[in-house]
C-alpha cells in the first residue's frame, strides 16, 4: 500500500502562477492540436452502423431447425421460470417426445435482456439476437408473438406446427395399442 | 483479539447472548437491544477494539421480529465486528448510533423510512428516500403493496 502526499503547489504567487498557467495551457493546447488531426470516431448512426458482436443480447429468437423442419422449442417453460420479470408465456402443442409450441409471446416492455432464459434452455431453442432497434412510441407493439420471434417468421411457424402435428399423428398411429391401453387404464 | 472479546464479555456479561469468531479478524456478536448503544460505544472507545469505521447498519423483518445488523471495521487492526440484535415488531425502538457514528445517520433514517423502526436520540429522524407524506412502511412483510395503498398512486398508464 503506497502512502504518499499529493503533488502540492507552492504558495500563491501571481506571476509564477501566471507563467505556469501559460505553460500548462500551452501543453494542453498541444494535446488538443494533436487530436484535431486524429481520425474522428463518430459513427453516424442511422447511416452507419457498428458491427454487432456475436454475443450481443438483443431481441431473442426461436431457433429454426432445418433438419427436423421445426423450431427447437418444446414448450417446457423452463425459460419462463428462469425469467425474473415474467416476460415469456407460451402455449404448448402436443406432448411427449414431439412436443412443440403453437404460441410464444414475449413482452418486450418488461424484458431486461439478461440472458437468463437462454441459459436456462436445455434444448438450444432460444437465443438473443443482434436486433437492438426495438424502440417504439406505442406500448402495444412491445408484445412480440411467435411469428416475430421465430427464425423464418410466419412461414417457419406454419411449418413448425405442420411438422409437429404430422409427427404426433404418426406417433398415434404407430402405437395404437399402447395408447388405447393407457386410455383404458385412465377410465377404470 | 481473544483478550478483547474476554474484556467485552466481562464488561457486558449477560447482555451479549452469543458470540462467534468467524475468522481470525471477524467476530459476530448477538447482544440485547437494551445494550445496543453501550456495546457500540464500548467497541468504538475501547483501545483493544477501536472499531472506528461504521460500515453498515440495517434492519430486517422476519415476520415475528425485526433484526438489527451493524457492521463495524477497525482501521487500526483491520478487524470486522458484526453486532446483531432483535427488537419486537409491536414497538420497534432502539437507541440511535448517529451521534456515535455520523456514518449511520442516513442508514438509520432509511431504516425508519422503510421499516418504521424508531431510533431514539437520532438528531433528524425523518423519511429519506420516500416522500414525507408516504403512509406505512413498505419493507415490512405485512405491507400491502397494492397501488391503491400508495398515496402517490395516479392514473394507471394507458397505451
Amino acid at each position: 500500500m503506497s502512502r504518499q502526499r499529493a503533488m502540492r503547489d507552492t504558495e500563491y504567487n501571481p506571476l509564477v502562477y501566471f507563467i505556469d498557467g501559460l505553460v500548462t495551457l500551452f501543453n494542453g493546447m498541444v494535446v488538443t492540436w494533436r487530436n484535431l488531426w486524429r481520425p474522428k470516431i463518430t459513427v453516424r448512426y442511422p447511416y452507419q452502423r457498428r458491427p454487432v458482436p456475436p454475443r450481443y443480447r438483443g431481441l431473442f429468437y426461436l431457433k429454426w431447425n432445418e433438419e427436423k423442419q421445426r423450431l427447437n422449442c418444446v414448450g417446457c417453460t423452463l425459460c419462463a421460470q428462469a425469467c425474473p420479470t415474467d416476460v415469456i408465456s407460451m402455449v404448448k402443442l402436443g406432448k411427449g417426445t414431439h412436443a412443440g409450441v403453437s404460441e410464444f409471446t414475449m413482452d418486450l416492455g418488461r424484458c431486461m435482456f439478461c440472458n437468463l432464459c437462454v441459459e436456462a434452455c436445455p434444448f438450444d431453442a432460444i437465443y438473443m439476437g443482434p436486433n437492438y432497434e426495438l424502440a417504439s412510441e406505442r406500448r402495444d407493439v412491445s408484445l412480440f408473438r411467435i411469428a416475430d420471434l421465430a427464425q423464418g417468421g410466419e412461414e417457419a411457424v406454419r411449418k413448425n406446427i405442420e411438422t409437429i402435428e404430422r409427427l404426433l399423428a404418426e406417433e398415434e398411429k404407430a402405437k395404437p395399442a399402447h395408447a388405447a391401453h393407457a386410455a383404458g387404464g385412465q377410465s377404470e | 483479539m481473544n483478550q478483547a472479546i474476554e474484556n467485552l464479555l466481562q464488561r457486558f456479561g449477560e447482555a451479549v447472548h452469543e458470540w462467534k469468531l468467524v475468522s481470525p479478524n471477524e467476530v459476530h456478536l448477538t447482544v440485547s437491544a437494551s445494550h445496543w448503544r453501550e456495546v457500540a460505544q464500548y467497541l468504538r472507545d475501547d483501545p483493544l477494539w477501536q472499531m472506528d469505521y461504521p460500515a453498515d447498519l440495517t434492519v430486517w423483518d422476519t415476520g415475528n421480529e425485526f433484526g438489527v445488523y451493524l457492521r463495524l471495521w477497525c482501521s487500526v487492526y483491520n478487524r470486522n465486528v458484526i453486532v446483531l440484535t432483535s427488537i419486537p415488531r409491536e414497538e420497534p425502538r432502539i437507541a440511535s448510533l448517529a451521534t456515535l457514528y455520523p456514518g449511520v445517520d442516513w442508514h438509520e433514517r432509511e431504516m425508519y423510512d422503510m421499516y418504521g423502526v424508531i431510533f431514539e436520540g437520532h438528531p433528524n429522524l425523518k423519511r429519506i428516500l420516500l416522500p414525507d407524506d408516504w403512509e406505512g412502511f413498505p419493507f415490512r412483510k405485512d405491507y400491502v403493496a397494492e397501488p391503491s395503498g400508495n398515496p402517490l398512486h395516479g392514473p394507471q398508464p394507458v397505451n
Partner: protein
Amino acid sequence: MIEAITQFFTQHPLLWAFVKAVVLASFTLVIPLAVIYVERKIAGFIQSRLGPLHVGPQGTFQTAADALKLLLKEDIVPEGADKRFFYLAPYIAFVSTVLCFMVLPFAPGWVALEMNVAVLFIIGVSLFNVVSILMAGWSSNNKYSLLGGLRAVAQLLSYEIPMVLSVLAVVFYTGSLSLTGIIEYQVKHGWNIWHPPIMIAALIYFICALAEINRTPFDLPEAESELVSGFNTEYSGMRFAFFFASEFANNFFITAFAAALFFGGWDGPVLPPIVWTFLKVFVMIFVFMWLRWTPPRLRIDQILRFAWQLLVPVSLANLLFAIALGVR
C-alpha cells in the same frame, strides 16, 4: 452609373448613413453564422467528432437553420420578470456591438464612420454590453441568472481596466486615437506587435479579450455546469438569438480590433487589404476557439484576484513604458 449613385448619396447624407447602418447591422447578424459554424466544426474536430454535417454541404447551413428555428420559436417571458428590461437587454447588447463595428476600418476607406477618437468610442460603447448582461440577469427573476449577471459585471468591469490600459499603451505609442491612424502608423513603421511594450500590451489585451467575450477559462457568467446557462437562462427564441449573435459578433469584433491595434489591420503583401483583415481575424478566432476547448474554467475569486493583482499593475507599468518610448 456609379458616379450617379455617389452623387445621389453625397446630396442625401442621411440616406447614406442609413444604408451604412443597415449594411453593418446585417453584417453583425450574418458574421455570427459563420463564426458559430466554424466554432462547431473546430470543436467537433478537436473532440474527435465531426460537427454539423447534414444541413447543406458539410453542414454549412446548420447555423442558419438553427437561427431560423430560434426566430420561429415561441417567445417565452418568465412570470415575474421585469418586462421592460427583459425585452430591452438583448437589443442593447446587439446595438453596442453594431456601434463598435461602425468605427472599425476593414480596408483603406472602408469604414462606416471615420472618427478621430475611434478607440475612445469603442471603449465607451462596448461597456454597454455589461449593462445589458446585468439587465438580463436581474430582470429574468431567476436566481441562476442573477448570479450569472453579477458574476459577469464583476468580471467584465475588472478586465475592462487592464484592457483599456493596454489599448492606451498602443495609443500613446502610435500617438493616435483613430484606428485608421494607428493602422497607417503600422503600415509605415511595422506592426506594433514587434515592439516590446506593445508585445506585453498585446498579451494582456488577449487575456482580457477572452474575459470580455466570456470564453473559457473566463466563461463564468454562463458557466453551464454551475449556473445552468447564467444570465441568459430564461431567454428563448429571438431574444436568445440576439444575445447569441451579439456574443459571437463581439468575438469577431474583439479580434478585428486586436488586428487593427497590434497586427497592422489591413496591412499585408500581395492580397488585397480586406482579405488581410479577415485572414488575421479568422486566425485569431481560430486560436480563441482552440483555446476555448482546452482548459477548465476559473473560479470567480481567482479571476478577480488575477485581474487586480497581476493584470492591472502590469498593464499600468507597461503603459508608462509605452509612454516613455512613444513620445517622439
